[in-house]
């Protein structure tokens, strides 16, 4: 466990050197400052004065949650895109000749090395997202003097979405020793496959009569990580209602993550360097 922690910390250090993470932190900081400045000009009483007294609390809660989601969702999406790009080279860098030899000569198991890199990457995204989400949440909550903690669940769900995609990046990093395939597959799933399959599984009967294609689309839907639902309906329901209305996307994505990581570990333990 100690070795995994050491590797994670040094991966975090590696990430800080990459301009992308600093760039995102910079964007987040800029937006938070802008948000604070804009909110200092808004009169919250004027917004809520039209609500009847019984429904006032509910209305404030909805305004706050919507505002937070409107600000954070696109930024979280951007953070995931940048994180995939920046973290895709962690594993290939580790596997470079001269570097991996040194690491493997130390009393550290290969699994610990891989997990260290994996958790290090996740830690970076967690810090980035937490900074953004906690920042937005604090500013809005302070302004309305209303503290709704559900919004903080977003940190967990966005980090989890990245963890699923990063497992794929780790897998392709180990098998190809290159950052490009993992990055491309992660983008493909996040931007194309997951949203298309989510849409397709319900609407496929309108597009084709073929039972084979319908089964294929549905099969793919169950296999491919459901990043669209994680970032969409599940985030929304957590923030607005503090509940998860459907666990299937979380469970199937988690199973995908575990299977990919176990297989990556198996391959890494067998690999010649």
């Amino acid at each position, binding site marked *: 466990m100690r070795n995994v922690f050491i590797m994670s910390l040094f991966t975090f*250090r590696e990430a800080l050197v990459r301009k992308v993470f600093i760039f995102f932190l910079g964007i987040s900081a800029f937006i938070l400052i802008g948000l604070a400045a804009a909110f200092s000009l808004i009169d919250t009483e004027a917004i809520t004065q039209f609500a009847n007294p019984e429904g006032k609390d509910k209305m404030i809660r909805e305004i706050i949650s919507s505002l937070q989601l409107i600000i954070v969702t696109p930024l979280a999406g951007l953070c995931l895109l940048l994180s995939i790009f920046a973290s895709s080279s962690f594993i290939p860098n580790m596997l*470079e000749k001269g570097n991996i030899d040194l690491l493997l000569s130390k009393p550290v198991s290969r699994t610990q090395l891989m997990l260290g890199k994996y958790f290090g990457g996740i830690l970076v995204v967690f810090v980035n997202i937490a900074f953004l989400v906690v920042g937005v949440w604090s500013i809005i909550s302070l302004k309305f003097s209303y503290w709704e903690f559900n919004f903080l669940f977003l940190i967990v769900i966005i980090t989890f979405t990245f963890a699923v995609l990063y497992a794929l990046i780790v897998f392709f990093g180990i098998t190809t020793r290159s950052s490009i395939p993992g990055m491309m597959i992660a983008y493909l799933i996040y931007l194309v496959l997951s949203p298309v399959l989510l849409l397709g599984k319900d609407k496929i009967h309108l597009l084709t009569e073929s039972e084979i294609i319908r089964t294929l689309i549905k099969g793919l839907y169950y296999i491919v990580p459901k990043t669209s639902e994680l970032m969409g309906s599940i985030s929304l329901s957590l923030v607005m209602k503090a509940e998860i209305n459907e666990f299937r996307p979380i469970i199937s994505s988690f199973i995908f993550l575990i299977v990919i990581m176990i297989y990556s570990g198996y391959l890494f333990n067998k690999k*010649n360097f």
Partner: protein
Amino acid sequence: MTDVIEIHKLTKIYSSSFGKKNIHALIDLSLNVRAGTIFGLLGPNGAGKTTLVKILLGITFPTSGWTKIFNTAISDYTIKKRIGYLPENHKYPPYLTGEEVMIFFGKLSGIKKPELRQKIKELLELVKLEKWKRTKVKAYSKGMMQRLGLAQALLNEPELIFLDEPTDGVDPIGRKEIRDILLALKSKGKTIFLNSHLLSEVELITDRVGILNKGRLIREGTVKELTERKEEYLITFDPDSTLMSIEDLINGFNLTKISELVYSLKVADITELNRLIDMIRKKEVMIKEIIQQKNTLEDIFISLIKEAEGEVK
């Protein structure tokens, strides 16, 4: 003395795509290295030296055969607490300073913080990098990288140290300093496995040498065993000796004149040498010195490699 490294019938075959062309990096290699010695592994480029070290450290896996270090299979990675390694062309994260590199590898080696600080200070002083410890390694020269590599290999006070071309890129003074460090380590009972193509250097510090060519161990022994020419001697006579008396002796022996007073002698065995000495002394010719002829390690290396190449052809 116990064997620290045991290698038994080790074979490593690298398969190319679709298995069309297999590369035999190591073939049926057996070798033992004793504790407290410096073992030098020599061989031309592509002989399999680095592959052997990588297998010993569990970085690469053998196709067949087995290896043991401290009587333990390397699959037990905890054994690496007792091992240090300086790879050829090692790379460190360029954004770390020399000191941070040492901290990172020290922590991975399981060294606790207070002890680690002290150890890093000592080692950076030893390799003369104390002044550069806060400089990022991307600014280090090749020689400085080698020194840092050596320091990190010694962090955990290993009992066995693998060094792959440790003096590569190091200036002559630095090489001498590294040699001295290695000899000091040996005097402390450490075992050193040295991969190098700098034969003169290996000759200076190793106890035993193995010569590897195309994956096969073609010779192994002490430097003395490999370099001495058993039946060849150089005899120098005293200037007061009468030349006639010496010339008379040539008849019965394989004695070749090198210069006025120096002769080269080839004998079948030591008895023949002593017979000649008796005869010379009987004629009251004064012998100034008798030196057994030696090859340099380089001579032996080149002739063995050529011999092996001939056999292959």
